[in-house]
């Protein structure tokens, strides 16, 4: 963590990344605000609440309970059920050891990471590794990843196994959920590869084929499918490379800019204005600060969604688009064509609507 980023956060300890937050970084890569806040480890939900624009990102405890129940069922009896579906899915023998590296706990971070390294260093070790602790460099900052997952080692190849409790019905699952799971699994693949490279192994030993274990149809029976995450991996790598430059960006900010949650709402809002956001309606379901950014973006065509903005000829604000359509504003050189279309559309709407 660089000093510039640390300063932005003020006195509070950094909010830790997890696969989900790293995956979210790939969602809106053009947004500097998100990149800076995430890189600095600012607690975005708290920040949003402090400035009066709380988001609603709750998770139902029924969903959590089912997810945990499904995982516990798979891992019961030395992972008997999990081994069975994996054997069927990968058509490999999933026999071998099982190592649980322990529960999520801050005090054991380093120990668990050391143990993960040991297990992976001795390539012939365990077949199933539960709760491994991986690290990944995000914006020049080393973050611990605590995947609730199992790395499966078969014939020297490592497969990331992601357990999700959504259902695959007749071979089909919710595509949004599958793609979210794929990006998360890609984060783990990347972290595992970097770790292997550090240990002097061939990073490609980690397969880009991850195994997704879901429930089948309407039961709690598991079904495993193989997902190829090469595309997600390359997006992620590109995004992480870009984030590396975020610390420079942060360093260029005026010294007064701070997101210390102890500051008043007015100061925080002023600080946010120094870091440009790129709001899109999709942010509402992905970023805790989105409600504020939407408020800030009010009146822009982007706030109406990408298709609307494009159809309005890429004009920045609603007022400008309407002025061009009414013929009260003179189009700039690159707007001539768009303006003509807008005027024609306005004529038609005036004639018919």
């Amino acid at each position: 963590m660089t000093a510039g980023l640390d300063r932005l956060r003020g006195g509070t300890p950094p909010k830790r990344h997890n696969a989900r937050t790293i995956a979210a970084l790939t969602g809106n890569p053009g947004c500097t605000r998100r990149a800076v806040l995430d890189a600095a480890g600012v607690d975005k939900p708290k920040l949003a609440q402090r400035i009066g624009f709380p988001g609603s990102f709750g998770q139902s405890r029924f969903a959590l309970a089912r997810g945990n129940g499904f995982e516990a069922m798979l891992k019961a009896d030395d992972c008997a059920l999990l081994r069975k579906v994996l054997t069927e899915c990968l058509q490999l023998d999933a026999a071998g050891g099982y190592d649980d590296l322990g529960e999520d706990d801050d005090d054991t971070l380093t120990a668990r990471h050391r143990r993960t390294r040991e297990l992976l260093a001795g390539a012939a070790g365990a077949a199933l590794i539960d709760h491994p602790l991986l690290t990944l460099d995000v914006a020049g900052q080393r973050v611990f990843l605590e995947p609730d997952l199992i790395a499966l080692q078969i014939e020297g190849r490592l497969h990331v196994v992601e357990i999700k409790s959504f259902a695959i019905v007749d071979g089909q699952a919710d595509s949004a959920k599958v793609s979210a799971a794929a990006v998360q699994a890609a984060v783990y693949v990347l972290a595992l590869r970097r770790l292997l490279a550090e240990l002097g192994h061939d990073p490609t030993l980690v397969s880009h084929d991850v195994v997704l274990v879901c429930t089948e149809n309407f039961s709690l029976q598991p079904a495993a499918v193989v997902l190829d995450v090469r595309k997600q991996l390359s997006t992620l790598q590109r995004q992480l490379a870009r984030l590396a430059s975020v610390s420079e960006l942060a360093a260029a900010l005026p010294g007064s800019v701070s997101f210390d949650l102890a500051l008043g709402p007015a100061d925080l809002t002023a600080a946010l204005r120094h870091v440009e956001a790129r709001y899109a309606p999709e942010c509402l379901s992905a970023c805790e600060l989105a409600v504020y950014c939407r408020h800030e973006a009010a009146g822009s065509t982007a706030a109406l969604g990408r298709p609307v903005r494009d159809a309005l000829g890429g004009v920045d604000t609603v007022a400008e688009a309407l002025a061009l359509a009414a013929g009260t504003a003179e189009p700039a050189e690159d707007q001539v064509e768009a303006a003509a279309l807008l005027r024609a559309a306005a004529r038609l709407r005036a004639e018919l609507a």
Partner: protein
Amino acid sequence: MSTLTALARAQAYADGRAQPIATVRHLHVHPRPLVLIPLAMAGEAHAPLAALVGAERSAPRLLIVAQPRNRDHRFAFAAELAGIVLPYVDSFTAATEAVAVDRGRDVRHRFTDAPQLWVPNTGGVDFLRLFGRSTRFRSIDGEYAVPPSVPLLGRWLTFFAHAAEMPGSSLLLNAVQALGLHWATGQSGAEDAQLAALLAWISPPPGRTGAEAARAAEDPALSPPAGPATDPAFDNHVLAPLMSTAEPDVAALTEVLRAQLLPTWELMWRTLDLLRELPAGARVAGRWDSDRDTYSGFVQHLAEGGPPQPRRDGAVAAAARLHRLESAATRYAVQRAFDDPLVMAEYRLVGAAFAGEVTLANADRIDDTGKRPVLRPRIMVVTGEPVRVEPGATLTSPQRPSQKALVISVTAAGADRTEVLLELSGGMGRKLVAEPGSVPAVGERVLLTTLSEAYRPGGAFPDPDQTPWTHGGPPPAFTPGSEQADQ
């Protein structure tokens, strides 16, 4: 998105109120629709939690599942829902009408009316599809027996879910999509997905702008989500304490679930009111006729003891279905444009249609170059709109759908005027003199478009038992009772 709709969104934003993007209603609104608002249990694989259902605004029926993880409770819910849905869908079989087929050489019968289901959003449609999937294969005897109405309900729900995929069908409609077809709001499509916010833009409460009302409607405490997903805060703070006991307090559960569902119930009927205010498009009745055909066919299929819809279509059935969906989509787009000048305007904007004035008309022109003389009047249309048609193209006019207009020449006349010379055929009677009014007269304003309502022949597909090996060979026959253990 078309520039026209995008501009309507911009105007809606500036005005603080949704703008119309249609001048007529493009779907059939039944006088007695069945409104169904399903809620699903978070985390469970499409397990129902509750449903508010009914064909009368003043009499919603609330069904709840006190223990959604309990299989027996789920099927009791399904049986209860069947007790409402099945009598409703059966109530349209009283009268039939004869329809001429095969050019009048034969007749077939179809019911004079059909059922219509309304759910709040596409999530509701998906829920019905999956609930149909989870019930239609249930066995009515053996160890896991369910009441006979349960698999029948599953087959009906699957029927409706399939119909909802067919563009232009009004058998199963969702409020969000139906409203979005007729109004543009000043917010994004993603935000429109919330029924309360969408309606707030269309008919805001007095004294508030659509934007303000929509923001207020986003608070799940004020406007509970329209389902099937519930508000996580409601799950954690209200539902969980009530459900965590071994014997849930059914009365208390009923009360909180009713409170979650009633606001949406009101929104659903307001949606229907708003849509009923619009006059129906001219071709809406024709599409409802096809819906009645589909319904009649399914009733007959059930009466003949046909098998439930397969889990997945076979290769031939899938290809045929895709073909039907594609032609329905094309037909629906054309019909909407022909019914509604505001929809046609989108085509005018891109040059696929243009409106202009007839400046010359030769109504009695005879073409005698062929074996026998034929009536081929020519007209000249002058327009200031963009014209992107080539000589040789065939155009139609919504005013005279049975008449074809062949483009002879397109000439630029001045800076923004185009002269289009057209040769007409059809729709003028059988004589060599055109029927009065069948040829546009000088001074008449006409609209011409490349869109065509002409009949498109269906694709030729082999019989399922002739499926080629490249497509997996003939599919296996359905065997009842083959999937009991997946629930």
